[in-house]
């Protein structure tokens, strides 16, 4: 476990205003927000763990399990919906045998549904570890997954 001290020290001012930025930076570092970090933030701010958990579960951004090696965000904005993103999501869930919000057993993939990635002109859009893929059809998606798997094997 990487230390959160550095992040906590960036916010020496124990104000509640810093809660969400702290959670964001900690998630950025670890990929998710763990129980330990919530307690750690709680004693830093100080704020009851129930309040932090309440805040963290309110927002879409925070996850409480480690994401996969390839974190796939699928946009479910209006434009993407009109262009068939629900089929893409179905297909993705079928292909990876997990539901949105979950991570595959081998820790390779995780799916996250995002309200809108803001690239509506390229709908339907997915983002893999932050890299956008435009005009994603079921076929294109299969290709992307194939490439990712191959890439992983290539890396040993």
């Amino acid at each position: 476990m990487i230390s959160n001290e550095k992040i906590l020290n960036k916010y020496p001012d124990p104000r509640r205003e810093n809660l969400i930025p702290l959670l964001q930076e900690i998630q950025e570092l670890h990929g998710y927000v763990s129980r330990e970090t919530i307690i750690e933030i709680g004693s830093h701010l100080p704020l009851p763990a129930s309040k932090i958990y309440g805040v963290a579960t309110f927002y879409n951004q925070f996850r409480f399990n480690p994401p996969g090696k390839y974190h796939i965000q699928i946009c479910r904005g209006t434009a993407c919906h009109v262009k068939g993103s629900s089929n893409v999501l179905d297909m993705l869930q079928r292909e990876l045998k997990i539901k949105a919000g979950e991570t595959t057993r081998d820790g390779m993939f995780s799916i996250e549904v995002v309200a809108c990635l803001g690239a509506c002109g390229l709908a339907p859009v997915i983002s893999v570890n932050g890299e956008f893929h435009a005009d994603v059809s079921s076929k294109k998606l299969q290709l992307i997954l194939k490439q990712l798997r191959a890439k992983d094997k290539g890396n040993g």
Partner: protein
Amino acid sequence: MFNIEVNSNLIEAKPGEYILSTLKRAGIKVPTLCHLEGLIPSGACRMCVVEVEGMHDLIPSCAFPVSDGMKIKTHSARVVKARKTIVELLLSNHPDDCLYCVRNEDCELQKLAKQHGVIERTFAGEKNKYFLDMSSPSIVRDPSKCILCGRCVRVCEETQGVSAIDFIGRGSKTRIGTAFDEGLNISSCINCGQCIMVCPTAALRGQRYIEEVQEALRDPKKHVVIQHAPAVSVTLGETLNCKNGADVSGIMTSALRTLGFDRVFETSFSADLTIMEEASELVQRIKTGGTLPMFTSCSPGWVKFLEQFYPEFIPNLSTCKSPQMMLGAVIKSYYAEIEGIDPDDIYNVSVMPCVAKKFEAGRQELSNNGKPDIDAVLTTRELAMMIETSGIEANSLSPSIADNPFGERSTAGKLFGVSGGVMEAAIRTANFLLTGYELEQSQILEIRGLDGIKETIVQLGDLTLGVAVVSGLNNARKILEQIKKGRNDLHFIEVMSCPGGCIAGGGQPIKTDIELIKSRMKSLYYIDKSEPVRASHDNPYIKKLYDEYLEHPLSHKSHKLLHTSYSEREVLI
């Protein structure tokens, strides 16, 4: 003052107040759910909406200020339809098990459904399912019955300064729970049960020990004794159709006997005992330079609060056990000895105004080598239920008095039921211990009443004591923070977890009306005024107990039986 028009009638309104307050004063009833007197309105439930001329949408009366000339309709067709729909929506996500519910006929949701003529199921759909949280010895949480009014969250945070629970998740998946959706038992919950008192449904309720007690009563080998706490006798009457605040200790004692208890004792007796020990401890601390200010330790919610949030103050906590545990200890030692009963055959029950007492009874520090001194704790509500189940017409019973050796009390012991009472009782005895005389003016008005923090200075002989009386743990936080910052004019602080003391405890009949609480308080003060034995050290049976068994306050034996120590507690906070 100006006028507003409500349903075509003019009524007077005060500038700055919310519409709901104006309506209430004028006797106009508007249904509410999330509203809680004294706290900032949250505007969540929308039950209190009214139609205001010139406004496009319906307005929540609890959160909207009045203005001069405002025209309001409180029960227009539009308003009534909206309220009914809201109730129907709540019902569509509520388990339909009213007949199997502890709050049946005492449920705000049920009442609202009836009031709004809900007779058919308008919306049917998926209901949220959650686990029942039975992990706490004091409180049961049933989130599937929760309507998310948020009162419990506010009470836990704003009144008690604990925040063991909060809203979790979002949208229709929103629920109320502890950090990480864990059980209450490992949370920072102090078991005060104030959340139960404000819950409109049965989403929060007390743990029930009626069945265990009934089983013990059926067991011929068991000698079942029961003690009742000072604040129980002035609230139980409400469940027996008596006047608010009526002291029913006489008929309650008879009812308890009818239920089959072998002995009925008064916790007020051991409150006197507590005072003997605690006043002596205070005097000793002052004389020997012990840790000051000393805090009272009879409120189990407060003790847990201190253990987890302010462990540095544990040395300030009086080492006295609470009256419940003291009596439990002497019943299983002194009483067993004089009666010639094996302590293991005694089943020790208590009726408390409190759900935290259930937790207290199970504490390791308060047991006798791991054996609990108290076997089961019932609340006032559970006792009322037992009386009802047994078909006892309590009002037709002739009053009787509790059994000796623990049936007599001073009025000081009885005052334990109200915020400030422990302090008054302790001052009476401390004064006697220090000066050898009774206090001239025994009533200390500065520490009576429902204020959350009350302070005064008392003169005991040549000793000047700064004392404070606190109820509601958010107020305790304030005082503790002051002390942390160096405040040093206080010597003795009484803390009760529940605002107003045990008369408003989490085990009392579920009503939060402030007038009701005042009547309970008045009743206890009336008892204090009208009876002759008004100080713990004047209780003849206390003297007897010391003479025959305990020797003197703070003796070796007292220490073993009546005192304890606490340590820092790790919880999810």
